[in-house]
C-alpha cells in the first residue's frame, strides 16, 4: 500500500512533531522579498558563509597551533611546511579574513546606499556596527598569532595607537598586552580573544542581527510603487537563496585561488629588533597607517586626533546616522549628502591605501 509511510518518513514525522522542523523550515524560506530577489542582497549571506568557513578552518588550525611565545612560530611553520594541506588551510583562513573585511564593506555600503538603516531598522544597523567592530578585532588579534615579525610589529603599533585614548588608554593598552611590552602574556590574551571571546560575541550579535532583520522584514528596493513591488515580490527561497549560493561559490573559489597563488609565508620569528623589516599593517588598515604619517596628525594632540578622535567620531557618526537622517526618503539619487559622503569616504580610503603602497618605494 503506497499510503503507508516508510521508515524514513516515520523518523522525519517523529522529529518534526517534537521540533517543529517543517514550520521552522517554511518560516525560514518563505520570507517575502519586496520587489523580488536581487544580486545586491547577497552580502549578508556571503558574510555568514565566510564566517562559518573561518570558524571551520580556525578550529582545524588549532589542532597544531600552540599559543606560546616559544612555540607559536614553530607550530605555525609546522602547519605550513609539514602538515598535509596545512599551508592551504592556513592560507584559506588568512585570505578568508580579507574576504570578511571586503564583504563587510560591501554589505555596509549596500545598506547605506539603499537607505535600509532607516526606521524601523535602526537597531539592525547598530548591531551591524558592533559586528563590524568585531570583524576588525578578529583581524587585529589573529594577525599576532603566527608570531612572526609582521605579527609583532603590527601589534606593537596597533596597541600603541589604543594607548592614545584619553584617560583609559594606558590601562587598556597594558590590559591587552598583559604588561608594558608585547610578549607571552600578549599572545595568550590575543589568542583567547581571537578564538573564544570574539567568536562568542559574533555568534550572539549575528543571531540578534538576523532576528531583528526578520522582525523588521527586508527593506526592498528604494524605488517603485507598492503595486510594482508586490508584483515582483518573491520568497527568500528559491531565487534569493540561489543568488546567495552562486555568490558564496564565487567567493569560495576566489579565496581558494588566492590561497593557491599567494599562500602565507612567514617572516622571521617575532623579536623587538625589526632588522631590515619595514613594519606595515594588513591592507585594510593601510589607510589608517598612511593617515598617521600626515603632518597634521603629528605631535601628541595630532596623534590623538588621527588615531582616536577621527576614527571614533566617524564610528559615532555612523551609529547616530539613523537618528540624524530621519527623512523616509531611501532613494540614494535623492539623498545627495549621503551619496557624496559615501563617495568621499571610499575615495579617501582608496587614496590613502594607494599612497601607502606608493610610499613603500621611498623606503627601499
Amino acid at each position, binding site marked *: 500500500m503506497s499510503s503507508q509511510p516508510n521508515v524514513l518518513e516515520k523518523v522525519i514525522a517523529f522529529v518534526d512533531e517534537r521540533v517543529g522542523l517543517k514550520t521552522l523550515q517554511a*518560516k525560514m524560506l518563505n520570507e517575502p522579498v519586496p520587489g523580488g530577489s536581487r544580486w545586491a542582497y547577497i552580502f549578508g549571506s556571503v558574510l555568514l558563509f565566510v564566517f562559518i568557513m573561518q570558524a571551520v578552518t580556525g578550529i582545524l588550525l588549532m589542532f597544531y597551533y600552540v599559543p606560546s611565545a616559544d612555540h607559536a612560530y614553530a607550530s605555525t611553520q609546522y602547519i605550513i611546511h609539514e602538515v598535509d594541506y596545512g599551508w592551504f588551510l592556513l592560507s584559506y583562513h588568512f585570505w578568508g579574513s580579507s574576504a570578511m573585511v571586503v564583504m563587510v564593506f560591501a554589505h555596509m555600503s549596500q545598506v547605506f546606499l539603499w537607505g535600509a538603516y532607516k526606521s524601523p531598522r535602526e537597531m539592525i544597523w547598530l548591531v551591524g556596527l558592533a559586528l563590524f567592530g568585531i570583524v576588525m578585532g578578529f583581524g587585529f588579534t589573529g594577525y599576532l598569532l603566527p608570531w612572526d615579525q609582521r605579527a609583532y610589529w603590527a601589534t606593537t*603599533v596597533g596597541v600603541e595607537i589604543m594607548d592614545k585614548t584619553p584617560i583609559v588608554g594606558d590601562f587598556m593598552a597594558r*590590559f591587552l598586552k598583559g604588561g608594558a611590552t608585547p610578549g607571552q*602574556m600578549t599572545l595568550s590574551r590575543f589568542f583567547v580573544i581571537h578564538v573564544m571571546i570574539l567568536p562568542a560575541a559574533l555568534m550572539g550579535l549575528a543571531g540578534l542581527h538576523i532576528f531583528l532583520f526578520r522582525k523588521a522584514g527586508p527593506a526592498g528596493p528604494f524605488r517603485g510603487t507598492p503595486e510594482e513591488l508586490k508584483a515582483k*515580490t518573491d520568497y527568500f527561497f528559491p531565487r534569493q537563496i540561489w543568488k546567495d549560493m552562486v555568490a558564496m561559490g564565487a567567493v569560495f573559489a576566489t579565496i581558494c585561488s588566492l590561497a593557491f597563488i599567494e599562500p602565507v609565508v612567514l617572516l622571521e620569528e617575532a623579536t623587538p629588533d625589526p632588522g631590515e623589516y619595514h613594519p*606595515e599593517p594588513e591592507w585594510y588598515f593601510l589607510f589608517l597607517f598612511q593617515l598617521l604619517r600626515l603632518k597634521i596628525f603629528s*605631535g601628541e594632540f595630532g*596623534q590623538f586626533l588621527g588615531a582616536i578622535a577621527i576614527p571614533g567620531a566617524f564610528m559615532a557618526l555612523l551609529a547616530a546616522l539613523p537618528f540624524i537622517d530621519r527623512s523616509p526618503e531611501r532613494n540614494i539619487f535623492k539623498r545627495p549628502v549621503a551619496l557624496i559622503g559615501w563617495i568621499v569616504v571610499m575615495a579617501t580610503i582608496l587614496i590613502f591605501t594607494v599612497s601607502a603602497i606608493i610610499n613603500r618605494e621611498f623606503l627601499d
Partner: protein
Amino acid sequence: MHQPKLKSKVRCADREVGEITRVIVDPLSHEVSHIVVGGNGVGGAERQVPVSEVQSVADGLVQLRTASSALAQFPPLKREDYVTIHEVEIAHLEDHLHVESGEVLVPLPTLERNVPRRTFFMNLTHAIGTLVALPLAFPVLKYLMKPMYSPFDNAWLKVGNVNRIKTEDVGIQFKYKKKVKEAFMPETDVDKNVWLLKASPDVLEEVYKGKDMEFRDQAGRLVWTNKKDVPYVVFSGKCPHLGCGYKWRKVPKLGKEIFLCPCHLSIYEPSGKVLDGPAPRPLDTLPIRVDAGGNVEIIDMEFKAGTKAQTRIV
C-alpha cells in the same frame, strides 16, 4: 471599519449566502484584502470576494453590496496559490490581524494570581544575580591585571665596543641580547638594539643643552647621570612616535644622513631632534657608561611612545 471575522455570516444585498471560511491578507499592507465565502448560497465553491465589496461589518454578520446572483463573477478560491500565515514570515503580520471574534483565554494558575508576589520574585532574582556577580568583579579584575605592571630593571647591559664607530655623528646600530623571564616561561634571550653615536660638540650640545641628564627609578631615586661631556650618546631603538624600529638612512633629497622610521616616516637629526614627520618628541636617550677599554654598557629602558613627555614603562 472592523476587520471581517472568520465564521461570520455573509449577507448579499438580497439574502444570506453563507459564511466567511477564510480571509486573505495583503503581505505588504498587512490589511485583509479578500474574504472567502463558502456555503449553499455560493454554489459549492468557495468564492474570493474583495473587501471593497463589503458594505458593513457587524457582530457576526458581514453585509456585501453585491446581489447574490452576481457572486458567481468572483473567482473560486485556488487554495494552492496561498500559504497559511504559519508557513511564512511576514514581520508584524499577526499584530494587524483581528479576524477571530472575541478573546481566546488560558487560565492563570492559582498560585500566579498574586501580582505583587511576581514583582517580588523578579526583584529577588536580580538581587541574587547581583550577589553572585559583585563579589567576583574584583577578583576577576585583579586576576586579569596580574602581569600589567612590573618593576623596572635597572641592570647594566653590555652592548659592544665603541671601536666600531669610525665617524662622528653617524648612527651605528648595536644589537644585544636581553635576558627576559616572563611569568611561567623559561628565561629567554630577546634581541634588542640601540643606536650609538659619537657626537660632535655641536650635536652633544643639542642633546644635553648644557646640562647633565639624570635617570630615576619608580621611587624617584637617582639611578644614573649621563655627563654632558661624554661624547657617546645612546638612543633607545624604539621610535617615540608609535614604537617601531627606526633606521639610519642617507636621504638624497636632504643631502644628509638621518634617523628614519619606516612606519610613519618620522625623521630625526643625529642629535635625536625631530626633523620631520609625526613624532611628538626627540629620540629617547638612555643611560650609558663607557669604560677605559671602550666597552659600552647601557640600562635598557623603554618609554611610552606617542607622548610629548617621556614616561618610562620598562
